């Protein structure tokens, strides 16, 4: 774990240089380099959503109560990386297309999925006892919904599917990109494990507290 953290810290420290070394893109200049953080962040967002969905399945159908810790951790990370993605996206879009927001398939789908996880957070916070199971139901439905959200948003604007918004990347840009993806993945795994462990500990403290005055 410590090794991972050291490695991740190191990678993030070096990242600015790697990104700097990548060539400038013709039309956009410097700002496009936000992409190197935006895309890995988007992937981690989706990964978090999938982890939350899988853990929800284990909680509800395999009856593993500890899976709830992973759902909580993954959902929180989905909100975190989702927010990051949704902020860096418009920053990029402003420079690339001159507007803050376009209703394109990917961005809008991400927004909807993000909303589902914000809803999860609100549910856990304000729903009262028993909301762990309810939240798991929500996360599971959210995960099942991803293809539907994507297809419907994709075909929503125009019936003919728009061309992809991701430009094809030359090799020199590929290296810093994959470097950042690796760094982000490490970060994600670390955060997930730490957060889940926090939940495990919290549950253990509660159990100890409850056992404390047993005769």
């Amino acid at each position, binding site marked *: 774990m410590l090794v991972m953290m050291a490695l991740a810290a190191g990678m993030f420290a070096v990242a600015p240089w790697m990104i700097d070394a990548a060539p400038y893109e013709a039309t956009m200049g410097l700002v496009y380099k936000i992409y190197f953080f935006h895309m890995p962040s988007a992937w981690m967002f989706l990964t978090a959503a999938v982890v939350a969905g899988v853990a929800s399945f284990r909680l*509800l*159908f395999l*009856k593993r109560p500890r899976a709830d810790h992973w759902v909580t951790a993954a959902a929180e990370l989905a909100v975190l990386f989702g927010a990051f993605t949704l902020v860096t996206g418009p920053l990029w879009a402003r420079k690339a297309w001159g507007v803050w927001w376009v209703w394109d398939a990917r961005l809008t789908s991400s927004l*909807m*999925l993000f*909303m*589902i996880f914000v*809803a999860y957070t*609100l*549910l856990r916070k*304000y*729903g*009262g006892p*028993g*909301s762990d*199971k*309810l939240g*798991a*139901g*929500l996360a*599971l*439905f*959210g995960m*099942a*919904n991803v293809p*539907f*959200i994507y*297809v*419907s*948003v994709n*075909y*929503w604007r125009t*019936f003919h599917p728009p061309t992809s918004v991701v430009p094809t990347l030359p090799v020199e840009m590929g290296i810093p990109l994959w470097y950042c993806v690796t760094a982000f993945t490490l970060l994600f795994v670390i955060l997930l494990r730490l957060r889940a462990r926090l939940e495990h500990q919290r549950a253990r403290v509660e159990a100890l507290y409850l056992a404390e005055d047993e005769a």
Partner: protein
Amino acid sequence: MNAFARIVWFVVKKDLTVEVRSLEILSTTMFFAVTVVLMFSFGLVVDGRPLNDVAAAILWVAIAFSGTLALGRTFERERHNDTLRALLLAPADRPALYVGKLLGILLLLGLVELVLVPLIGLLFNAPVIQQAVPLLLLVGAGTLGFAAVGTLFAAMLVRARSRDVLLPIMLYPMTVPVMIAGVRGTAALFQPTPDAAVAQFWLSLLAAFDVVFVVLALWTFEPVMTD
């Protein structure tokens, strides 16, 4: 009739009987839906002419809003006197309870839509009669998808706190595909030259959504309702 179907039948019959005695949920939901249509029309009709495709949008927003209300209030009835607990106590198959409740909601929303769709046709000169059959399929499939998810969520939230605002918070993002498909499909039918192919595409998306989410809800109902 096998046991599952019997339970569904009796739950639907019970819900209908209860509703028919007072008609409270039906009449208030219907009036609310009409109000929503008018409210949105005031915002979206400019210079006496509606913006493009607004009729379709208003129809589906009205369905979503009134559907959420109807769901909340139907389950509020089960919370009063704790009858939901009695339902869960019975040896009846839990998914059958879900299907029974779902059919009741569909019936209720169907009646509301029977008023809404002609109203939209009237206010916006939309070709609801000419497009009656495809429209029926589209609205039916969309309502089913919306209600399938909504019934599960509303049932889940019966014992939760803040349940009245949590239902829309959970339901709306989840039913975005239904809204998009419904609006785009209906808009395609309302065009001066209706685009049947587009409408068909959206109808098939709705059908897929319905199948996936009804099945998912049937599986999830029992684990989610047991405390």
